[in-house]
């Protein structure tokens, strides 16, 4: 058994080791060793010397740059110890090991325990969440409106107008759609897989993953409007997102971002030259794409896809990026620093950071959505 386990080929082993080596060494380079009591005097002398060195370095303009870089190398130095408020109106949905959290603009948090993932209804009045064998629509305060027993539902997304909504999700039978009041559940495509993304607008048009690429389907008529044959690696984490006007669809898969027109024509594909794409998002109300990448040397960046202009960078690994509903801020989940960093996208550059995210959300936290200024 030992020999057979040792002979199993682990995919991407060499590249994975190199990526991990860079991250680990970068984190090690900026760690703060805990002084041992018996060496207090020597450490104190070291601290004084280090402080003198930093002061001397900071005295010259190039030195200032070095100091700034050190401050931001693994985490923004001046960070809030807790999420006291959001910088923009709206509420966050956050999934963690303990369940799904609703976070208000003033930093107030409510735990919806027992759910593994969730997303907002179109106007943020309700949440659709999943647990082991149940799809659940509930109010953000926790009151359940309806439930639907299904085998291993996941990837639920809600769309529609104030009077007519649909929820798409995937279970073991394939891609299914149910009305916003929990009625009329039906199978749309047995080959459909998560993730799914509703095209903005009043028509019920849905993009979803199939074995050989993407389909865009009108779920009311059943007609497939577009097929994009793309070599997606379906075993890997995939993201789908429409632009606000429904004319562009971005896909993140296997370390690259692809942008399609609504008819399935591939418009842009990122190269791996600038690193592995972790996440991407449209700037609200535009076709500009922001991309989070893990680059060489243990560095991660968020930059504009077309211009390459860097919006934010740091050491280690970023997770997801989420624009605020008003488009003024971008939330960057900085996993290595255990911080959330809010970067202002409009006007002069402002950065606000919050530390201790895992502790606040009782486990690894993932932002599922930021919805709906009221």
């Amino acid at each position, binding site marked *: 058994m030992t020999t057979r*386990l040792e002979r199993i080929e*682990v995919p991407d082993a060499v590249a994975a*080791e190199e990526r*991990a080596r860079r991250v680990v*060494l970068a984190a090690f380079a900026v760690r703060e060793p*805990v002084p041992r009591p018996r060496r207090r005097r020597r450490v104190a002398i070291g601290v004084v010397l280090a402080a003198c060195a930093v002061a001397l370095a900071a005295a010259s303009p190039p030195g200032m740059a070095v100091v700034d870089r050190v401050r931001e190398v693994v985490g923004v130095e001046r960070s809030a110890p807790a999420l006291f408020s959001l910088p923009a109106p709206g509420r966050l949905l956050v999934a963690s090991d303990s369940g799904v959290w609703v976070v208000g603009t003033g930093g107030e948090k409510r735990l919806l325990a027992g759910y593994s993932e969730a997303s907002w209804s179109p106007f943020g009045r309700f949440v659709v969440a999943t647990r082991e064998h149940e799809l659940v629509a509930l109010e953000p305060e926790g009151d359940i409106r309806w439930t639907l027993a299904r085998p291993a539902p996941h990837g639920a997304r809600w769309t529609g107008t104030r009077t007519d909504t649909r929820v798409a999700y995937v279970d073991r039978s394939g891609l299914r759609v149910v009305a916003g009041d929990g009625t009329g559940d039906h199978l749309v495509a047995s080959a459909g897989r998560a993730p799914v993304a509703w095209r903005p607008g009043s028509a019920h048009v849905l993009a979803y993953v199939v074995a050989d690429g993407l389909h865009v389907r009108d779920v009311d008529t059943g007609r497939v409007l577009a097929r994009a044959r793309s070599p997606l690696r379906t075993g890997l*984490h*995939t993201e789908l997102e429409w632009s606000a006007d429904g004319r562009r669809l971005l896909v993140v898969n296997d370390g690259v971002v692809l942008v399609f027109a609504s008819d399935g024509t591939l418009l842009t594909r990122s190269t791996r030259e600038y690193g592995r794409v972790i996440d991407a998002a449209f700037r609200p109300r535009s076709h500009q794409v922001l991309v989070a990448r893990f680059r060489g040397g243990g560095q991660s960046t968020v930059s504009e896809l077309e211009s390459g202009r860097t919006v934010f960078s740091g050491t280690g690994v970023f997770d997801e990026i989420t624009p605020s509903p008003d488009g003024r801020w971008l939330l960057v989940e900085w996993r290595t620093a255990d911080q959330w960093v809010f970067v202002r996208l409009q006007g002069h550059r402002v950065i606000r950071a919050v530390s201790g995210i895992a502790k606040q959300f009782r486990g690894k936290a993932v932002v599922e959505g930021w919805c709906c200024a009221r």
Partner: protein
Amino acid sequence: MAGAGRDERAWVRGAQRGSASDLEALFHAHWPAAYRAAYLVIHDAALAEDVAQEAFLAAIRNLDRFDRRRPFGPWLHRIVVNRAIDTGKARALRRESELTEGDAIREDAEPPDSSVLRALGGLPPEQRAVVVLRHLLGYTPGEIARLLELPRGTVNSRLRRGLDAMRESL
């Protein structure tokens, strides 16, 4: 073996004093087994990379508190396997991309020992972890019980059930 242990203690001591080259030596000595163990428990290369990487980052954060008279490997493997079990359970609930086993096999070239991988994949994460700790990393049931903070009887029963199920599958 004793020489390897001395090397490791020297690397830990050096890393605690801030030596990047000693930390790198520790990384190279332990990454392959950590990544392989995570992969065999989770069955997803990207998630396994995350888990093994986060285990090393956690180890760095706690390096100053580490008792260097003890071996580094079990300490790291405990973090890796516990995180891999948690991730495996969370993944079973989240299922970001529904991929049946048949699809996965069609998509990738058949690896040389895919039957073992498939058989292992059929076990719950807790049983996979015990099989990996016993048969890949070479821990005794008593050591596994201490690593996972489980009764020894539980380790033995998970191991027996896991191996029985794998035998049937193979």
